[in-house]
Every structure is written in structure tokens, then in C-alpha cells.
């Protein structure tokens, strides 16, 4: 389904701000699989999702989706196959446009947008039915600007928008991180429902080990721009939060040894 083949990305190469964000990353994701991506801050999780979504073109490597090489495709071209929800609730919706206009935009994801009327009455009925199960009272507020809604409501709508037309691949980047725990739980419930219903192939970055343990069928752990661990099947099912904590500690200890060795070498030889 999705094949990430030896991709690398360096930001600001050749400057003092140079960051190697991805180093020779390879992952293959099967159709219908739900992958949780874990990792410390700055380990390259978002960069990996952005690479797949086409926010930038990777320096090296190849990305294929359903055997189509999309490595050089623009972001808007890949959007035909990919639905996205971002960490920032402000990122996924157009604040000054109404809820129904936002939804209408999503109903055309990756399709030609001609001079047909943007908001036909038939769609509005459909939208009412779409937002009603959210239990947020939005069905009566479809004409309100979406910017007036809370972060949780906006993330829930962004999720609906990303999946309104079934995407081949759903990318979720810490989409509950900016929400309070109660709202986050609600959005995660919704996420699970949506993914189950359409059997969506999903990559979900999360900071919550609880989520990673509870959800999905695979856990990929990133560290310093590389895939450090990859658990699936029975192994993934057996993983507990404590196991994940141990793995994080291990990675941290390795880092410390590396820096200790480096400073020792520096002290002795420089």
C-alpha cells in the first residue's frame, strides 16, 4: 500500500541551522493497517508524515502509494489519496468560512473544482446527518464560521473532512495533543470509529503511550530521524506502557553514553 523506501530529509543544509530530520527511513504499510508512531520530541515523526503528504520533496528515497511513485508529486496532487488532520486545531479548517463551506470543500478533495455551485441544498442535508453523530450540536450551527468553535470541535470536524471521501491513507499528527484530556478522549473515540468503519489505512503520530497501546495494530518508534523499533502482530498486542517506557529509557541511556563518550574524546584529544 504505502512504501517508504530509504528516504532522507535535511532541513537548512549547509547552514548553522542544519537539521537531519530523517535518515534513511524505510517503512512498508499494508492496506487496512493502523500504525501508531511514537518518539521523543524532534525525532522526525511529523517530518515523516509531511514527507508522505508532500509538504516538501524528500532529498533521497522513493515513496510509493498503491505502486504509484509519488515521490515528486506536489502536496495538492497527493491530497487526492491522502486525508490529514494536524496537531494544531487551527490548521485543518478555514476559520472565516462557515462549517458547511468547510465541509463542502472537503467533499471535493482531490476532484476538479469547476464553476458549479459550491453549496447545493442537497449537500447541506447530508452535512446535517454527518455532524449529528458528533453530539456537539453542530447540526444547527452549520452557517456559523468554524473559527468560533472550540479546538475539540474543530478537530472532530477536520477528521470528518479528511475522511468524507474515503482516503487511501489517513495521516494523523498528534491530533489530540492540543486538546484537554476529556475532549482528546472524545476525538480519539471518533477517530477509532471512523477508521474501523471504512477500514482506513492510517498512520497516527501520538505522544500518548496509552493511545499507542490501545489502538492500532502496529507501533513504530522513531528516534533521531530513524525507525528505532517496529512492533506488529502478536508482539504489538502484548506491548504494555511499561515496555514502551523501558524502550524510551534505553534510547535515552544510549544517547547519554554517546554524548559522554563524545565529551571524553573531546577532553582527551582536542
Amino acid at each position, binding site marked *: 500500500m504505502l512504501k517508504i523506501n530509504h528516504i532522507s530529509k535535511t532541513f537548512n543544509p549547509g547552514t548553522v541551522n542544519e537539521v537531519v530530520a530523517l535518515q534513511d527511513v524505510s517503512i512498508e504499510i499494508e492496506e487496512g493497517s493502523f500504525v501508531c508512531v511514537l518518539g521523543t520530541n524532534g525525532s522526525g515523526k511529523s517530518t515523516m508524515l509531511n514527507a508522505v503528504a508532500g509538504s516538501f520533496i524528500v532529498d533521497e528515497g522513493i515513496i510509493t502509494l498503491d505502486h504509484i511513485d509519488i515521490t515528486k508529486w506536489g502536496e*495538492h496532487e497527493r491530497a487526492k489519496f491522502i486525508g490529514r488532520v494536524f496537531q494544531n486545531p487551527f490548521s485543518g479548517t478555514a476559520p472565516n*468560512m462557515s462549517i458547511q463551506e468547510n465541509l463542502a470543500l472537503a467533499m*471535493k478533495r482531490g476532484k476538479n473544482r469547476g*464553476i458549479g*455551485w459550491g453549496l447545493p441544498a442537497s449537500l447541506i442535508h447530508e452535512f446535517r446527518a454527518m455532524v449529528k453523530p458528533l453530539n456537539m450540536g453542530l447540526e444547527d450551527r452549520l452557517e456559523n464560521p468554524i473559527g468560533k468553535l472550540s479546538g475539540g470541535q474543530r478537530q472532530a470536524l477536520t477528521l470528518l473532512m479528511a475522511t468524507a471521501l474515503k482516503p487511501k491513507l489517513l495521516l494523523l499528527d498528534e491530533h489530540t495533543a492540543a486538546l484537554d484530556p476529556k475532549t482528546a478522549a472524545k476525538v480519539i473515540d471518533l477517530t477509532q470509529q471512523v477508521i474501523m468503519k471504512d477500514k482506513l489505512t492510517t498512520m497516527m503520530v501520538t505522544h500518548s503511550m496509552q493511545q499507542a497501546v490501545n489502538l492500532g495494530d502496529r507501533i513504530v518508534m522513531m528516534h533521531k530521524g530513524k525507525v528505532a523499533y517496529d512492533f506488529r502482530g502478536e508482539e504489538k498486542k502484548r506491548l504494555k506502557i511499561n515496555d514502551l517506557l523501558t524502550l524510551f529509557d534505553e534510547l535515552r541511556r544510549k544517547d547519554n553514553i554517546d554524548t559522554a563518550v563524545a565529551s571524553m574524546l573531546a577532553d582527551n584529544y582536542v
Partner: protein
Amino acid sequence: MSLLIGSTTIGLILALLALGIFISFRIFDFPDITAEGSFTFGAATAASLIVAGVNPLLASFIAFLAGMAAGAVTGIIHTRFNINPLLAGILVMTALYSVNLHVMGKSNMPLLSETTVFTWIENLSLSWSGADARTIILGWEVAVKDLWLLLFCFLVIVGFCITLWWFFKTNIGTAMRATGDNDQMIRALGVNTKLMIIVGMALSNGFIALAGAMLAQYQGFADVQMGIGMMVWGLASVIIGEAIINDNSVGFVILGAVLGSVLFRLLVAIALRWGLNPNDLKIITALFVFIALILPGLLKNKKLSFKRKANA
């Protein structure tokens, strides 16, 4: 009274400019100074075509296309070469100055002896109600011809407003508005935002060039300087419109831009009549826009400090 009618007519013509500025500034949040060049470009194109004997309606349409081309160039410079919007606009505006001189072959081109769109309307008035016909409105005597010109401009503007409103409600127009509102979001929904910006700037400058073309025909000449200050003028109209119509849905903002343009023109005409030095017009327009831009922030701070005092 005929001063008011004349000013309203010019206000309606300049409403096309305000609509152009509305597209760049409000829809795309793109401070597009190409306007200053494309306004003259429209005037120069229409004027020289009319002098060359081209049908004035066709000449106006070509002026519209010329403005679109100029806007598209600004859009391309910005999106393809990553040049900041202001600088992209300045580059095209500067280049257009030379282009305009070439188009006209001189810095001023009179149209008084030519047949323009407005000559047609005057002839229509002539055949309808006779030469120098006058009528009484609210106790003032006015030329019937002036009323015809006003009506014509009014109908043209209504036509363009409805078309523009319809366009921004279509699928492509909605995507354009979303590009200005949240480009990251609409890219993730499959829209080529760079293309949207290019088309949007083209549309904006098409309107602005048409305003120039119409004004040149109305006042009877095109001048290479006539675009100076037009961007701020258009912005002032949009701001006034937003102040009188406090609703930011597309239809109302379009309506507001037109009302703002007419009102602003009337205010200026009255101020000039009261003895405002025409040389001071631009500084006053600039001051006006400056104040309109900082006023909301000032009011907010006042309210905040008031609250703080109340809490203390």
C-alpha cells in the same frame, strides 16, 4: 447636484477598483501594489485602442485582459520565485510604467474627440430626450445626460457585483477564498494554492484595469500618472464599506466595497468643494487608511486597560 451625480458616477467606476482591491487584500490577504500600474495599464490600453479605431467595448474588454496579464505576472513572480508579495507587486508596477508609456507613445492621451462607451450613452440620451435636456431632481436642475451616464455605470457595477458574488460561491471560488483563509488546509484538500493566487491576482488586476479603462473614457483622457495612490484609494473604499456594512460574508463585503467607493468619492468631492487643496488629497487618504487600520487595535487596548482598571 450635478457635482453629486458626477461624483457618484466616478465612485461607481472606481468601485471596480475597490472590488479588485477587495480580491487581493481581503480574499487573498495579498497587499498587491500592482494595482497602481494595472489601473493605468487599463486606461492606456483602452485609450490607445480607441484612438486606433477599435470598438470601445472591445477596447475595454482587452484592457481587462491586459490587467489580468499584469496580475498573473505578479502572482507568478510571487509563487514560482518565492518573492514577497509587496516586492513582486512593486516590480510589476515599476515595469508597467514603461509599458504604459510605450502603449500610449506619450504621457497623456486625450479621448475627447473619440467615440467611447460614454459617447454612446450620451447619444442614446440625445436621441431619447433631445440635446441639453434638463430635469428637476429634489429641486435641483440636472442634465438628463448625466443621469443616463449614472444609470449606465450603476448597471455595469451591479452586473459585475453579481458575477463576482456568484463566482466566489462556486466550487472554484470557494476554494479561492479558502486559499486566503488557510492555505495549508486547502492544499491538504487537493487545491493548487499557487495557481489560485495567480488566478486571483489576475482577476483582481483585471477589475482594476477595467476601472482605469472606464475612468479614462469618462474623463476623456488617459494619463501615465493616473494610477498613483489608487491602491490606497481602493483600500479606503473597502474599509469604509466594511465599517458601514458590518457583515463579512462575501456578498455583503462586495456590496460594502461599492458603497464605500461611492461614499468616499462623495466625501472627497465635498471636501474639495469646501476648499481642500487637491494636492493634499493623497496625504489625507493615506492618513484615513492609517487611522482605519490602527483604530480597531486602539479601541481594543482602551477596553482592556479599562477592564484592568475596573479589576484593580
